[in-house]
């Protein structure tokens, strides 16, 4: 009896052991981690959580189609039908659709970062919509100039509608501030490529208005940009927009572009006065031999200075590795943890608390932060060299003289808004609004030649 009992117990134990081993793999994680077991009810099965499906993918395709149509319309209105009114209507439509309805996302400006990240990080999957948004305006610009900026970009549209009391920005300031956009572009690319952050999106000044809500800093920044744009035409486009910086370069090579008078320019200067973006250049005057010599000397100096500038900024960039790498949240976390380890930090942060809960070792964190800092020595150097290159190129560009016989839109700066059409007397004659150009001129008199030629040195008195 006793033996039988013992055998039974042993058999049970074996069964339990085998069963336990078999079941263990499946059951282990359920039983081990729960403080209270899930009860079993007589007539109430345990429900299963449910989560909603991803919403349909129709909208992005629609967005690309709308972008394409808008770009076609914008190019048609500025280059073929030459209608400022239609451009303006399209601007308002784009602002409503891309801005307020789609809330400024996807936009080609921000898409730059996705493309940069996708190039540098093969694991990141960039949506095709975003690629299309990035590439389409580039291709259009190569053929028709910056028609995208004119009436498709919601950021541009917002400022376009506000440019009512534009003052002329001094040339030196205009040129220097214009460089900021290129530096911003470089910074955005290195930050996106290192997964530090998408700064273009984070510091987009118009998003607070499109989404009707943001934190105080961004609201203040956005409001000041809007306020400035009343007096300085398109401050964001001209001095900050990184995508605009790319378009400026491409626009220089565009196949067709906006021409101010449909026919011969009468050099009346009305277009230059009315352009809120300072993007129309007066005809050039013939230079005295002495000035020409001076110009040549300046070009030679600029050519010689440019490499020095590039090197100088490269060095400066490498010196900025630490502040640049601090943009990455993990580097900031590493610093905080270091301060806590040293007992200097007054209190822990949410991030450092979360880090301590994660089970990652402090050494690992430091290593990662240090290697990032080393990366940023190279990247900062590249950003600096890029900055130097941009400055050097600008200096050379400013030293090269181009001859103009009439008023012409700046190839890079013109956003094809078509405001000048409204004022050009030749255009008015073409439309049949007036019978002769003299009717549109202030004194009723046709200027005898380019106004600037009347004064010395190309400067207007």
């Amino acid at each position: 009896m006793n033996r039988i009992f013992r055998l039974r117990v042993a058999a049970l134990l074996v069964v339990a052991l085998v069963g336990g081993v078999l079941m263990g793999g499946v059951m282990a994680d359920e039983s081990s981690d729960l403080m209270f077991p899930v009860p079993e009810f007589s007539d109430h099965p345990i429900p299963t959580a449910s989560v909603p499906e991803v919403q349909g993918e129709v909208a992005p395709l629609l967005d690309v189609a709308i972008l394409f149509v808008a770009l076609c319309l914008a190019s048609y209105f500025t280059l073929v039908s030459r209608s400022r009114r239609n451009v303006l209507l399209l601007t308002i439509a784009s602002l409503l659709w891309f801005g307020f309805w789609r809330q400024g996302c996807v936009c080609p400006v921000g898409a730059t970062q996705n493309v940069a990240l996708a190039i540098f990080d093969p694991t990141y999957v960039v949506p095709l919509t975003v690629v299309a948004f990035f590439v389409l305006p580039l291709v259009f610009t190569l053929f028709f100039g910056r028609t995208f900026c004119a009436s498709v970009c919601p950021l541009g549209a917002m400022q376009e509608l506000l440019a009512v009391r534009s003052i002329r920005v001094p040339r030196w300031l205009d040129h220097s501030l214009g460089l900021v956009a290129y530096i911003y572009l470089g910074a955005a690319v290195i930050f996106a490529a290192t997964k530090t952050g998408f700064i273009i999106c984070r510091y987009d000044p118009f998003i607070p208005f499109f989404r009707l809500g943001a934190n105080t800093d961004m609201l203040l920044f956005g409001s000041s940009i809007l306020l400035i744009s009343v007096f300085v035409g398109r401050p964001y486009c001209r001095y900050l927009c990184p995508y605009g910086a790319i378009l400026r370069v491409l626009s220089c090579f565009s196949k067709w572009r906006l021409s101010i008078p449909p026919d011969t320019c009468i050099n009346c200067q009305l277009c230059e006065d009315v352009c809120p973006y300072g993007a129309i250049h007066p005809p050039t005057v013939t230079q005295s031999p002495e000035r020409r010599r001076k110009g040549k000397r300046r070009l030679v100096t600029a050519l010689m200075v440019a490499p020095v500038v590039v090197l100088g900024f490269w060095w400066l960039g490498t010196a900025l590795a630490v502040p640049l790498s601090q943009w990455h949240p993990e580097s900031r976390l590493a610093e905080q943890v270091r301060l806590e380890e040293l007992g200097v930090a007054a209190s822990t942060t949410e991030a450092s608390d979360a880090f301590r809960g994660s089970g990652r070792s402090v050494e690992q964190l430091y290593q990662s932060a240090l290697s990032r800092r080393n990366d940023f020595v190279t990247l900062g150097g590249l950003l600096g060299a890029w900055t130097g290159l941009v400055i050097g190129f600008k200096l050379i560009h400013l030293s090269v003289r181009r001859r103009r016989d009439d008023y012409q839109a700046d190839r890079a700066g013109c956003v094809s808004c078509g405001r000048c059409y409204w004022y050009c007397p030749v255009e008015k004659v073409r439309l049949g609004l007036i019978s002769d150009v003299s009717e549109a001129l202030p004194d009723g008199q046709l200027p005898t030649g380019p106004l600037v030629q009347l004064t010395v040195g190309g400067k207007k008195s």
Partner: protein
Amino acid sequence: MNSEKQTDRRGFLADGARVAGVVSAGVLGGFLAGRRGQADENRWQIDPDKCVGCGNCATHCVLDESAVKCVQCFDMCGFCNRCTGYYTLDGLDSRDTAAEDLLCPTEAIIRTFVEGKAGQNFYEYTIDTDACIGCAMCVKGCALMNGSLYLQVMHDRCVNCNECAIAVACPSDAFVNVSADKPYRLKRVALGVMRQKAGKADKAAQKLIDQVQADE
């Protein structure tokens, strides 16, 4: 003649630059599209095992009402009478359902009696998703016990921003990119249970498993 030649040269250069530009734009697009073909598009999601319930999800989302909401994983829930995800620590003893005793600020957790067994009462807690604001109060409370409540980005609401504003504010790096055809996560503990359940021809569990990207 000379100026004509110059215009020609300039035109030629511009033509060359334009062709180069279009070709490189095409190559870039093709390259990215080709690379994309290897993987599916990304979505934002919260890794519930990393989430610390800081509450940033409720306030940092660009949407007025956050895309992040709470999910109740019943298969991890103890159906407790004294639920630390439902009551504040003061409310645990009184078990009064007055507002000051409840954690949820929007009354998004619904408590229903299920069964009395062995002298214990069991309650089921379900989330009213429309009322939930993703503040993670309950998540933090429940983490004291079984941790069956967890936050997820709801993909009927999420607009899939370029840079998720919550991901930037997340202190624990819990925001991850997941593929769009499996845009959810489960707690690692729940994954095994859910697979078992799906193995028993439970359609709801199978559906959930199909939506979840396992991180193994």
